[in-house]
């Protein structure tokens, strides 16, 4: 009887200890939980699964107006003239002597386009565009790069379905492999480009 009770008791203790270790109880108890408002305001870096994307929508047609008003001053009327970095064109140029790197030819994720415009553009008024405006101007730029159609409407769901032409142009295919690489040597002499 004793033996059985002990064997029942021990695993329970071990489990309880594991639970405590997993939960990593706070050591210093410094700091406070954020408010809902703080989380909403600051949790807005958008990742590839789009969890942080807000409601709203826009298409290339509306985006053309946003572009003309907010972007063309630096990026040029057609998104190709500059003086700020070129936004349109360059697909199929990457392996040539003069690769043209644009969000259309080079950037692997459409969420990156949305996120960069949303938080870092336009210069000197960063973060001033509404979600609708960001969806719209993203749609406009993807349309001008022949990645979506003019009538396509982008929102938190459709943005994730956009297939960027250079999605598989980076290596190693899984960045986790690079993260664990303890060697300074660039990876490209060992790794193969990601396959489609």
């Amino acid at each position, binding site marked *: 009887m004793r033996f059985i009770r002990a064997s029942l008791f021990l695993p329970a203790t071990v489990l309880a200890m594991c639970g405590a270790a997993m*939960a990593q109880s706070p050591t210093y108890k410094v700091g406070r*939980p954020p408010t809902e408002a703080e989380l909403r305001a600051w949790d807005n870096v958008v990742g590839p699964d789009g969890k942080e994307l807000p409601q709203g929508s826009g298409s290339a047609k509306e985006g053309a107006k946003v572009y003309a008003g907010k972007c063309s001053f630096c990026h040029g009327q057609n998104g190709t003239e500059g003086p700020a970095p070129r936004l349109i064109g360059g697909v199929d140029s990457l392996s040539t002597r003069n690769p043209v790197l644009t969000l259309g030819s080079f950037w692997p994720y459409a969420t990156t386009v949305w996120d960069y415009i949303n938080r870092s553009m336009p210069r000197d008024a960063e973060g001033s565009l509404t979600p609708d405006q960001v969806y719209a101007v993203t749609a406009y730029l993807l349309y001008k790069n022949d990645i979506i159609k003019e009538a396509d409407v982008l929102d938190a769901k459709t943005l994730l379905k956009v297939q960027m032409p250079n999605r598989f142009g980076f290596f190693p295919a899984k960045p986790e492999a690079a993260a664990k690489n303890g060697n300074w040597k660039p990876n490209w002499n060992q790794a193969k480009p990601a396959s489609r």
Partner: protein
Amino acid sequence: MNSRNPNRRGFLKRGAALAGLAVGAMPFARAQSLPGAAADERPPKDLSYGERSRFENSVRTVTLGGPRDIIPGLPAGEMGQRLTPLQDSTGIITPSSLHFMTGRGSRLPDIDPREHRLMIHGMVDRPLVFTMEELKRLPSVSRIHFIECAGNSGMSHYKAMVKGIEVANSPALTKSTFVIQQVHGRVSTSEWTGVLLSVLLKEAGVQKNASWLVAEGADSNRHSKSIPLEKGMDDVIVAYSQNGEAVRPEQGYPLRMVVPGWEGVSNVKYLRSIKVVDTPYYLKVETANYTNMTPDGKASWYEFQVGPKSLITFPSDAHQLPGRGLFEISGLAWSGRGAISRVEVSTNGGKTWKDAQLQQPVFRKAFTRFRLGWNWDGEETLIQSRCTNEFGDVQPTMRQLGKLWGDKREPPIAGSDVETFWQTAPIMEFFSNPIQPWKVGRDGSVQDALYKS
């Protein structure tokens, strides 16, 4: 401007003194008439926060040909880039006022530390917000680490420098613009004090499937970067102090990340948010740039770690040797992986190498100062250094880097015709750590022999 002339004058003086000693002809009477200290007769000034002597003029320089120059319509205020005058460095610490900086399009933030908050959220059991005061109550560390921009030493900086001089058509600019600073000056070392990020993450309780962090700054363009959680739990510092005082505004006041040994873009300044996640976020600075393209059009991403690298900082192309005789070759070595264990110097174009003396103690992921006495015979020669870290990684030549970067030509073009190499692979730019040879001319001039070969 840190002009060639003051250095040259200083050197001529010291050279003359050395020459006098060498032949034993220094007149004793003249030695006795050495001037004493003159009092500063200018109106008294506030000495409560010190400044250097008015005779010192070493300064950071700007990158030539940056976006500010080409978009004149934008209002001023962007931080731009400022480059460290490595040619004037001594020891291993960079003065905070001379630490290199890049703004990546942001204007200089003006943050009241009483208002600043750091939020840890995402895949944690207890999302937390810290004030600066609260962060300073937690256990702190002080560590000496270098920070280097991933683009440092890249060919594009050499091209921008040459182009900038051409555009300005300014002889003065030519005299005050050096490869040692304009091409290599995106690296500096400080003592950083703050809380280990691992302390904050443990306090918040990282959940089981988490694997990455996304750090965000409070600067105007919200600079952000994905960092593997493993690194965040290792040696990342959330720093509020630099070289014994508050972090400077251009360095991220009041709070920045220091990610030891990893590309500079990881060291998020004005740090306000760290989100714990389970995927990299493929942000602009880890996809659209800071990725390295190979000749076949495929680009390498998420590389992080700076390779072993060294530079002779004296003599370099900012200096002029006054004549043959004894000099101390001095330079800096650093590695993103471990400590520097060896620096070799060649003064004959790589035919033979001698071990330089390493300043002790040697810190991991920090500048290591090396020194070697050199008796210059007055003939033209190439001087260069190469370093090895404690894992045996050796700094490569430009030619070896070219092969590593996918230049399949035999022999590789890099090294023999660097310009052609870069024209055919124009954006393989990051993590550039080639051996830098300096050409010493018979007239005592020192010139870059890496890019201008």
